[in-house]
């Protein structure tokens, strides 16, 4: 499982990089999906199939589909690609690269310092996740659900026909 | 202008009209049969019955014939009145009782005035159950088919044939309800206007026999306005085509030229377009007989290579043609330059035409239209046989005689049909014609004198002198001009003068050649001395323009290349190194100038076969292929016409004769074909000429005949529909375009400033030649040798014209090649009337042989022999020539 983890991780990193650099929005989104899949496999390798499935259902299956939906509705790939290139001159990459680099240094540093284990010894099923969510992290879950409720009400309000 | 009441509505009508004319002027539907705009009213058919009321208070009225009721101020009539309508319906029902059940096999079906009137009166159900009257038909020659059963006794045919055009051999026979219209005996109709019976007859009694062989309904015909190319008068025609062949020619009304009529040569001469012996593929006739061995592309490449090389060395020349359009001639002129261009008119004739054109341009006289000629009161015809040269001029003379009582005096070799109604006829050879003309001129100058003709002319209100070119005799023309000049000097008015020319564009080509290019003789000379090595000939047979055929043939053989563009296989095209097919008049568009100097446009009717293109377009391609594309940057005919206009002021306005390219009426181009319920792409679709034109296959019909492609309006499918396209009966068409006159006129013919003739002008060619020296007929008097006669040619209406004689119907009517002699001369020569001889004719400069039937004619001068002009056997003849005759009898 360790090899799977590393391959998937590498794939995730490459896909994430390509997601950022593609000028064709459609291709960028596809790489994002690929990155999400790779992450899902990582979760699976780390013994969290529930999270993996949720990752795919929620992120790949719902959120990115909505993004793709918007891309489809907005403009042709060729035109938007040209626009994208104009919006992203080399200097626009400087600050994000610095921030990402800092993050990478921190992560690698902490990993190097703490060692840690790549693959979990046990599988954590949905039952365990549920148990943790509704006990330890109950406040967080409730807060998130309140936030979602607010979003839902807002969406209804905006979508209501007078 | 009187105002009359029709159905309670006031209408303004012109003075002197009758109620029927008034109704038609205002586009009201009043049925009629026997009335004809040109032949007037007789009140015979009883169909135009209207209710006529005495005044406003009259409530009952009485039935009256519209055509017999003058439309005076306050006349009150009703068309839409039950009793009148019932009466008209009954008239049709009576007529239909004996009308056969024939429409499906009747050529008139679909353009039948009787059908129209039957529908218009509402007679839809035949109650009669009895037996129908029948008649036997007569054979009326190869042109007209007779189907007497269909007759409705309107008498239009005899009224036209006898009263209107002076024919004798069609009459009405028998008694009571057995009235029969026909000849006493079967046989070809003699009148050269018999074809008009087809259009005059309101039903299918007289139909076009040539059309029968390849019949198509009027609604299927693809038609376009065209110009007759078979004589110099330029009559307007409506050519109908279907499935890629010309099917018929019909009259196209032109208020100033031919009116409602066409002669039989014009109407039936179209068959040459469909002939089998046409030139349809590029060929190399001189090289070998196997035409298919050389591809069209290779013929073209070789011809271009030859022309390109020669054009560089300056040894290129071109011969145009008086039977080709101005555009085709102009393209040739552009190819070789004005100095190396020859009009292709034989020199003697060219001289005459040049003299006439110059004098007319200078305004020495007024050249009247055919319609104007009908109003003349004294007409002198000098040395012209109008019946056979320009038949419709003959009809105009008859109209002048019959309607206005004009006195017609003839001086000529042959009287023709005009002799039948002429006041006097004096026969003579060309020399004596000229002498007679001079005498008349002298008589006029001498205040009438004792010369009777001069006296009549002097007393005339509207005298007219007509001459022709058939004798190619300059003296005759000069004598005529002398008479004209004498008239002008005497009366102080502007004299009228007309000359018939032999071909459709003779005058146009002559005017185009305003810088006097080469004469035909100088072309031959130049070939012989090697100054011309490549010759381009368009639509011309040089053997018809040149006496010494042996010399001409030798010269043509000497050429490195002889490129011929023509639609017929001719003697010239058989000697060509490269022969290319050209389009005929119905297959192309172009501009012609008729003998009264009227520029007229003909429009393409059908697409010619593959490889066949108009001469101008082929010439343009040649110019482009030799690397001079900028000289001939023409896409369409319009561009060529515009170029002619730019370089020749004489033709100013020629581009406006036809609707411009892309012209549209109510957002549609004008269609060549009538509307169909469906789209027009049948199994075999109608031809769509490639040349973009104002006329198309998919457009609409112009409203109200701005260009009456095929006159037809709802309810009026026959040619009587023409009344719907005119402002008034017998007037010009709405949006009329009768052509543009080159010779300046002032309204009805009175010229602004008469100028004296210019006798000093010498139309000498650029390079004088031995052949150019005129042979005066007067100079070479008979040298006492009894065998020497002056050989003159007489035009024949059928047979003399090079294109029409190729059709089978007219070929059948053309007389056999003859030699007409005075009986004494025949006796001396030892020949007998009616027998065929091979004759040797030996002239001063050339000799030839002729196979002909000998005819004797005691009206001929003793020293004259007459042969038919323009026949294949006699086409060498150019002008009267003294020749010695030797005869050999041909075994029967």
């Amino acid at each position, binding site marked *: 499982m360790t090899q799977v983890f590393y391959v998937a991780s590498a794939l995730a990193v490459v896909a994430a990089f390509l997601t950022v650099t593609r000028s064709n929005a*459609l*291709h960028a989104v*596809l790489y994002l*999906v690929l990155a999400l899949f790779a992450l899902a496999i990582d979760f699976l390798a780390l013994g969290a*199939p*529930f999270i*993996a*499935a*949720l990752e*795919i*259902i929620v992120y*790949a*299956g*719902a959120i990115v*589909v*909505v993004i*793709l*939906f918007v*891309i*489809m*509705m907005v403009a*042709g*790939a060729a035109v938007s690609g040209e626009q994208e290139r104009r919006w992203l001159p080399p200097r626009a990459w400087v600050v994000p690269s610095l921030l990402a680099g800092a993050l990478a240094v921190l992560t690698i540093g902490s990993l190097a310092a703490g060692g840690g284990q790549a693959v979990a010894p046990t*599988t954590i*099923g*949905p039952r365990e996740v549920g148990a943790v969510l509704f006990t330890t992290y109950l406040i967080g879950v409730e807060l998130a659900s309140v936030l979602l409720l607010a979003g839902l009400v807002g969406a209804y309000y905006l979508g209501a026909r007078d | 202008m009187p105002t009359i009441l029709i159905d309670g509505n006031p209408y303004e009508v012109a003075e002197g009209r009758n109620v029927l004319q008034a109704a038609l002027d205002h586009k009201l539907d009043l049925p009629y049969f026997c009335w004809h705009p040109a032949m007037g009213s007789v009140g015979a058919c009883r169909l135009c019955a209207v209710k006529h009321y005495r005044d406003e208070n009259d409530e009952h009225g009485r039935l009256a014939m519209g055509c017999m009721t003058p439309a005076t101020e306050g006349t009150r009539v009703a068309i839409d009145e039950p009793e009148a309508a019932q009466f008209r319906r009954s008239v049709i029902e009576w007529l239909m009782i004996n009308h056969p059940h024939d429409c499906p096999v009747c050529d008139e079906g679909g353009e039948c005035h009787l059908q129209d009137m039957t529908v218009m009166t509402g007679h839809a159900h035949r109650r009669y159950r009895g037996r129908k009257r029948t008649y036997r038909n007569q054979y009326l020659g190869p042109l007209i088919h007779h189907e007497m059963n269909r007759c409705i006794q309107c008498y239009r045919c005899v009224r036209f044939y006898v009263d209107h055009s002076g024919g004798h051999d069609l009459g009405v026979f028998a008694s009571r309800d057995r009235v029969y219209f026909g000849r006493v005996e079967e046989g070809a109709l003699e009148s050269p206007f018999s074809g008009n019976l087809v259009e005059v007859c309101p039903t299918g009694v007289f139909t076009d026999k040539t059309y029968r062989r390849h019949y198509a309904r009027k609604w299927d015909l693809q038609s376009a306005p065209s110009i007759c190319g078979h004589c110099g008068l330029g009559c307007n025609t409506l050519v109908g085509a279907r499935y890629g062949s010309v099917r018929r020619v019909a009259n196209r009304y032109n208020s100033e030229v031919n009116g409602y009529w066409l002669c039989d040569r014009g109407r039936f001469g179209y068959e040459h377009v469909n002939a089998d012996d046409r030139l349809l593929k590029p060929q190399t006739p001189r090289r070998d007989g196997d035409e298919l061995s050389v591809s069209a592309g290779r013929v073209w490449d070789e011809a271009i290579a030859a022309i390109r090389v020669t054009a560089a060395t300056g040894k290129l020349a071109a011969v145009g043609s008086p039977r080709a359009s101005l555009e085709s001639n102009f393209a040739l002129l552009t190819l070789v330059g004005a100095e190396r261009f020859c009009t292709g008119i034989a020199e003697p004739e060219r001289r005459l035409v040049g003299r006439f054109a110059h004098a007319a341009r200078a305004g020495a006289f007024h050249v009247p239209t055919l319609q104007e000629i009908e109003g003349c009161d004294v007409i002198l015809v000098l040395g012209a046989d109008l019946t056979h040269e320009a038949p419709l001029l003959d009809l105009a003379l008859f109209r002048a005689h019959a309607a206005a009582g004009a006195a017609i005096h003839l001086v000529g070799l042959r009287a023709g049909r005009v002799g039948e109604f002429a006041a006097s006829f004096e026969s003579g050879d060309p020399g004596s014609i000229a002498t007679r003309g001079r005498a008349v001129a002298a008589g006029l100058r001498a205040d009438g004198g004792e010369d009777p003709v001069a006296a009549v002319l002097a007393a005339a209100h509207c005298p007219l002198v007509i001459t022709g070119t058939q004798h190619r005799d300059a003296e005759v023309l000069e004598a005529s001009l002398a008479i004209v000049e004498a008239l002008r000097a005497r009366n102080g008015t502007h004299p009228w003068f007309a000359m018939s020319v032999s071909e459709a564009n003779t005058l146009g080509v002559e005017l185009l050649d305003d810088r006097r290019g080469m004469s035909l003789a100088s072309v031959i000379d130049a070939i012989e001395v090697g100054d011309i090595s490549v010759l381009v000939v368009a639509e011309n047979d040089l053997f018809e323009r040149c006496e010494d055929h042996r010399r001409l043939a030798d010269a043509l053989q000497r050429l490195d290349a002889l490129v011929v563009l023509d639609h017929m296989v001719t003697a010239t095209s058989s000697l060509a190194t490269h022969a290319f097919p050209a389009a005929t008049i119905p297959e192309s568009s172009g501009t012609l100038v008729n003998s009264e100097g009227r520029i007229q446009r003909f429009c393409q009717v059908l697409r010619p076969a593959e490889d066949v293109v108009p001469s101008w377009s082929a010439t343009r391609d040649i110019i482009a292929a030799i690397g001079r594309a900028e000289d001939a940057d023409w896409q369409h005919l319009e561009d060529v016409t515009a170029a002619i206009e730019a370089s020749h002021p004489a033709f100013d306005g020629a581009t406006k004769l036809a609707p411009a390219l892309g012209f549209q009426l109510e957002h549609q181009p004008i269609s060549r074909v009538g509307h169909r319920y469906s789209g027009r792409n049948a199994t075999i679709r109608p031809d769509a000429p490639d040349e973009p034109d104002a006329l198309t296959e998919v457009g609409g019909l112009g409203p109200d005949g701005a260009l009456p492609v095929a006159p037809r309006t709802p309810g009026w499918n026959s040619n009587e529909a023409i009344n719907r396209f005119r402002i008034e009966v017998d007037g010009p068409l709405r949006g009329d375009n009768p052509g543009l006159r080159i010779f300046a006129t002032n309204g009805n013919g009175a010229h602004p400033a008469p100028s004296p003739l210019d006798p000093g002008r010498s139309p000498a060619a650029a390079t004088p030649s031995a052949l150019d020296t005129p042979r005066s007929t007067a100079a070479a008097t008979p040298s006492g040798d009894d065998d020497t006669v002056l050989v003159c040619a007489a035009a024949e209406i059928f047979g003399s014209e090079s294109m029409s004689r190729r059709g089978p119907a007219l070929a059948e009517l053309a007389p056999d090649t003859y030699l007409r002699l005075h009986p004494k001369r025949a006796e001396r020569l030892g020949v007998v009337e009616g027998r065929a001889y091979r004759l040797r004719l030996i002239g001063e400069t050339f000799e030839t042989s002729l196979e002909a039937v000998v005819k004797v004619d005691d009206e001929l001068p003793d020293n004259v022999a007459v042969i038919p002009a323009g026949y294949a056997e006699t086409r060498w003849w150019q002008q009267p020539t003294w020749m010695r005759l030797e005869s050999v009898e041909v075994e029967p």
Partner: protein
Amino acid sequence: MSAHAELLTRMAVTLVVLLVAAPMLVWVERRLLARFQLRLGPNRVGPFGILQTVADALKLLTKEDWVPPFADPVPYVVAPMILGITVLGAFAVVPFTASGAIVDLDVGLLFFLAMSSVGVYSVMLAGVASNSKYAMLGAVRAAAQMISYELAMGLSLASIVLIAGSFNLHDIVVAQQGLPYVVIQPFAFVVFVIAGLAELKRAPFDLPEAENEIVAGFHTEYSSMKFALFFLGEYLGMILIGAIATTVFLGGGNGPFLPAPVWFAIKVGLFIYLFIWARATLPRFRYDHLMAFGWKVLLPVALLNLMVTGALVVARTAGS
């Protein structure tokens, strides 16, 4: 037999059965539809026309594999593959046999949902990459429809998960030994079947390929094998939805006398029959009705059902 060999054998057998069954289904559908419409259907090629599908497949395989020049080539080619992979992948967790599925995944139901939600990509990519207005319209419709109905489907399944207490499909089957869940959860069953039909994009929910409006929807530009993959995907999808419904609501292979796979097949067949029957009967929805039905009827019903089920489950566990 080693575990790996057994896995491979199961995969191979499943694959073969599915890849034979799907084309057969085409024939079955055409014959059945014909019967519903008083016709005969294909009956010329082979006995009862059974080889018609083979002929059609051969025709599709021999057609030119064509990528339109205006298309975005990579997504265009990938799109049909995604459909095939996701649908076939989802079969991995379906317990055909008594002993369970190919992969006895704890989150089997979630895996199915994940696969079906990823399947949307196939349609959307096909639509966008075709670069054609009909494909685009089809894809937009498909995406909106599938997202909307997936929610209801997930919620209807959630109530089953609540009762069964497991995402594992085998566990769910085992839990239905006594009573199939269709009896306990009729609302969830109806919602699932309807949402499943919508997921399949079949009549009356076939707006993404409504031929009289947008030609063939998202696969307008597809031909040959790529089209065949879409075609195959649709019929495999029918089997998949039928299989999941069988598993979740009809107790999978449970049944007397006959072996589990046969029972399973019979039950799947019933669902397929239902789908074809619906297609033969029902006219296509209007698009706004489709959306309104999804969001205003199916979703509330599924939510209510979930709430009631949750409450009952809590009450029962509290009671016991």
